[in-house]
């Protein structure tokens, strides 16, 4: 029997989610239509609303419903510091430390040459415009310590250096409370290479 075309369309649409293949998409579609129609309606409404209202903050590039997000608009943050992170989840982690009172810039990705993601795709010109506003004293590059994160950090540091903006990179090494015995050798090797004088 041929399944109705709007069902097919829903299944096909669900496949755009990361990690969802044809089977999971089918399972989700049947669940939404058969078991949880209210949930399906909420999902549809939520998606439509978010798509319509959410945009990128003009200052930090994070998701927001305003032109400038609350954090950037608040006068209580130190506008001379800018912390550059890859994703909103990274921003949340830095915020949780309560150790940083400056502002942020969210790249929404990282440079990954083999995936065709370069400075142009990340719109790094926007970050540069943001960083040269005159108030800024230092940019803290807090991209991940993966190869992609490091490539991004290298690119950013060169970009800022050429424009005379002071930049720094967050430190890496053993975690707080970390024991050598239980740490992976890559981390220990790098911690030895990047040791600092006391």
């Amino acid at each position, binding site marked *: 029997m041929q399944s109705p075309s709007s069902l097919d369309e829903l299944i096909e649409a669900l496949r755009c989610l*990361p*990690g969802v*293949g044809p089977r999971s998409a089918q399972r989700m579609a049947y669940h939404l239509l058969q078991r949880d129609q209210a949930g399906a309606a909420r999902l549809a409404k939520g998606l439509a609303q978010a798509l319509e209202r959410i945009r990128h903050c003009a200052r930090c590039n994070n998701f927001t419903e305003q032109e400038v997000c609350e954090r950037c608009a608040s006068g209580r943050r130190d506008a001379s510091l800018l912390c550059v992170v890859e994703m909103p989840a990274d921003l949340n982690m830095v915020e949780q430390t309560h150790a940083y009172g400056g502002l942020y810039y969210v790249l929404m990705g990282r*440079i990954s*040459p*083999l*995936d*065709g993601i*370069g*400075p*142009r795709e990340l719109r790094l010109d926007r970050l540069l415009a943001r960083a040269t506003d005159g108030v800024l004293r230092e940019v803290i590059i807090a991209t991940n310590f*993966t*190869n992609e994160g*490091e*490539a991004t950090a*290298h*690119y950013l540091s*060169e*970009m800022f250096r*050429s424009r005379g903006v002071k930049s720094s990179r967050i430190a890496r090494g053993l975690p707080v409370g970390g024991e050598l015995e239980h740490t*992976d*050798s*890559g*981390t220990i*090797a*790098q911690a030895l*290479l990047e040791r600092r004088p006391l």
Partner: protein
Amino acid sequence: MAGGERQRVDGEPAFVLHTHPFRETSLIVETFSRNHGRVPLAARGARRPRSALRGVLMAFQPLSIGWFGKGEVRTLAKAEWMGGQPLLQGEALLCGYYLNELLVRLLPRDDPHPGLFDAYADTLQRMAAGLAPAPLLRRFEKTLLQELGYGLTLDRCVDGGEAVAAAGEYVVVLERGVMPSQGQPDEQPRFSGKALLAMAGDDFSSPEVLAQSKTLMRMLLSHHLGDQGLESRRVFKELQGL
């Protein structure tokens, strides 16, 4: 192999060339192994927050890996960090991506090239130690072309096999080889005999040889890469354009 027969490999020296997310928590890892060539492997659960594979499956680091299974994508059984090499940084890191992109684009899967593997490992090692990348890249490109069967004789001309003279001027014709430059169209880049002989002897130390070998390798590689340019080269260019 990539066929139906089951495979079990252990303790194989390898590098990660590239990874793609796969299903909810897994990765497809494009590896370059010493004795089996480029092998795609599924690393189950490698994207879980506490996965032991997370810090290990990093490009440019010498690994010892094991896998099993049949078909095109086999299953990663284990991966260990061999150590002894600092992480690539800065410009060397972007050059590393260039090497990886060349291998992903040009090296067929399941085609062993131990010589190329050793050249790759050596190039990374030297770049990690802080040596200037340009001569290392040119030598690797030359080895790559040779290993893939696209190697050119640089110290002799194609017709008649006349030896290249240091003082002479030559062109390199694609799919054929070195020819004296007289009577060749103007748009063909000219190479000095001295530079060709130095390249043949793997000596990329002088700036002139370095510049000419870059032109030559780019010409040969773009011929084999086809129309689609290299992303890593584009990113590198954008960086230099700052």
